[in-house]
Structures are given as C-alpha cells and as structure tokens.
C-alpha cells in the first residue's frame, strides 16, 4: 500500500526540496511506500484530509487540533526549538508605531494560514479592531502580503514570524514590525493517521535519532530544522486546549 504524506501549505518555499529529500529518507528507513503531495493552499489540503487520504502530515497547530480530535491522528514530534509566532507589520514609512495607532477602516492583508490569522487578530484586539471594522484582504502568500504593503495597497499585514524573517533583506527593510507574539506554546507537529498508528512508535524513534547519522543530519539541514523533539498525547492536548481557548 502507498501512504500519503503532506505538509502544511505555510512551509517555507526554500524547503520544498527538503520535504522531498525527507520523504525519500523516510521511505528508505521505514521500508514503506510514501507519496509526498504538496498542496499550495489550505482549502485543497483540507479537502484531502476530509477524504481520509492523508497518512503523515506536518501540520500547523490549527489543523493539528482538528486532526487529533476529529480524525484520530497522533502527534509524534515537533521541530526542536521552533515555535509558531506571529508578526504584524506596516510599511516602514507608516506613522503607525504600535497596534493602538491602527484605526478602524484599515486595509489588512492576511493569508488563509489559520493559526497565524487567529493569533494576528488577537493582537489587533487592543486597538478595537475586528473583521467587522477592517478592510480584510486575503492574499495567497506572505510574499504577496509584503508586496501589498510595499505598493501601498494595504496598511498592515499579518505574517508567520518565520515567513517574515525569510523575506529578502531588501523587502524587510521597507517594512516595520509593530508587534510580535510571544506565546511559546504553539508549534507545528508531525502527525500520523489511523493507518499508520501501529507504526507510530517506530517512526517517532527513527525521527528522534535522525540527527545521529550524517545522512539524517543532512536531511534535517534541507528541512531547515535542528532536529525533532517528542510530543506526547498530553503535550498535544495542551496545545489544542490553548488553541480552543483563544478562538
């Protein structure tokens, strides 16, 4: 049987090749056939999840909640030392210096990255801003959100911090972050679905020892992470409770 692996569409474009390399490494070490399917938007990935075609997923915190609670997935590992934080930025020449300077009616660029959007909207609450009093502009990627700010087509934009840091120096110089989340408890995680649950421990052990071999190490470099940390059931449940609390 061929299993399907997929990755949350908010992965950094620099690491597309890394996920293919990781899949090859995983297949070789597990002796399983795994097909990597990368979706470019959350909607098509969700349709695939709903059709129960996904077996391994590197999921964002929001989707991880749904996969664990509704689809009986199990979280195995999370990237070592990496947490999901969110940045709200404005054009560098904007008179806005803090969230409270933003006024109702602003044009807000955002992606359909669900947990980033959720945290971003929370960070706008102190200025009394909500989807009802902003001009909401959904864009296809963080690069497009940055372009909207640079062209003066948006007044503020919500970014995954990692994606903001991955923008070119030139672009970042033209932007001004006004607030950055410091949550620390929200992270992406690698999950396996019901068809692979019996192999969950084997896969977890394999991933945790990945950095011990030169080949495993080079795959980690291609993914842009230092290694994996184990996630147990309660760690995952805690993150889900936290996400539920803020939605």
């Amino acid at each position: 049987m061929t299993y399907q692996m997929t990755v949350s569409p908010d992965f950094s474009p620099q690491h597309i090749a890394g996920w293919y390399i990781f899949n090859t490494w995983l297949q070789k070490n597990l002796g399983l056939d795994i097909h990597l399917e990368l979706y470019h938007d959350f909607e098509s990935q969700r349709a695939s999840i709903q059709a129960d075609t996904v077996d391994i997923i590197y999921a964002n915190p929001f989707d991880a909640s749904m996969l664990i609670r509704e689809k009986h997935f199990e979280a195995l590992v999370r990237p070592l030392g990496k947490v999901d934080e969110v940045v709200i930025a404005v054009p560098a020449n904007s008179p806005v210096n803090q969230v409270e300077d933003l006024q109702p009616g602003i044009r807000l660029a955002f992606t359909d990255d669900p947990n980033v959007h959720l945290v971003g909207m929370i960070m706008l609450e102190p200025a009394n801003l909500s989807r009802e009093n902003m001009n909401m502009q959904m864009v296809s990627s963080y690069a497009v959100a940055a372009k909207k700010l640079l062209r003066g087509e948006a007044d503020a934009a919500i970014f995954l911090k990692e994606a903001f840091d991955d923008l070119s120096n030139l672009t970042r110089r033209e932007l001004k972050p006004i607030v950055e989340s410091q949550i620390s408890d929200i992270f992406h995680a690698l999950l396996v679905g019901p068809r692979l649950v019996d192999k969950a421990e084997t896969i977890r052990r394999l991933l945790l020892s990945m950095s011990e071999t030169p080949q495993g190490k080079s795959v980690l470099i291609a993914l842009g992470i230092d290694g994996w940390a184990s996630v147990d059931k309660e760690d995952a449940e805690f993150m889900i409770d936290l996400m539920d609390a803020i939605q």
Partner: protein
Amino acid sequence: MENMRPEDIVGEYQEYELTYYDGTSRKVLVTDIETPYPDGKLIVSRTDTAGIITHVNQAFVDMSGYTREELIGQPHYILRHPDMPRAAFKDLWDTVQSGKKWEGYVKNLRKDGGYYLVFASVLPNIRDGKIVGYTSVRRKPSREKMEEALRLYAKMREDENA
C-alpha cells in the same frame, strides 16, 4: 492562604478582607498602580479541578509578580482583586464546570498590590469525556471594552455590598 504582607507592597495601599468561594479568607493589600499588559504576550496557566494552579508560563510569572514556586499549588484566586464582583467568578465556575468555555474581562491583583487588566478565556480540559482540569489564557484587552466591564463590575460590587 497567607495574608498579603506590607513589605511586598509597592506604593500606598488599602487593606481589604476577601472571602473566597471555599470559605477561606485573607487580607489583601491593594494599590492603584497598573502594570500595563505587554503587546503580543499570552498568559497561560492550568489548574486541577479544584482550581489549584499546576502550570504557569513565564508571562504569568512576570505579570503576577510571584515566582513560579509561589504560584504552583496555590488556588487560582490568589489573583483575585477586590474590585471584581463575586458573581463574575461564580459565572466562570458554573460555565466551565458544565464543560463550556468562559470568556470575560478581569482585573487581576499582583503580589505587589498593583493590578493588571486582561481578557481571559477559561476552558475545561476534557480527557476521555471527563473534566481533568482547566486551562486559562489571558490576553491584552481592548481598552474601551475593559473600561466598560470595569464600570459594570463597580455597579455589581455595589449591589453585592448593598
């Protein structure tokens, strides 16, 4: 729980006697000094089913003024400010004990007698169909909505004390 100690307090304070839902009471010392809520932070804590603190994050430690060791094992009402009406906490407990999420604006008391203002969400932790504890997440509130809530709480306190 021990009374608050004058040597921990920063600034001029007033003394109140607070009685909690479990019948215990203590002296609290209260100043008018607000610690502004920092942008971007979430205060996270967990309690057992009796409301005893089992986990706090760093933002909780920073904002409350207590050390982690002072907080773990204490009832969550260690943060209760005398300006908060009893009815607000009754509503909180009734809601979460029935398995639902509670949200509201809260004025919290710091160890140094000052206060900080939050928008709080409290959620029951349900495992295998049973409530095993509660998670509370607090974030920076809208100033306007917070002031509205404080006016309402002042009115509720008046009614409670009438």
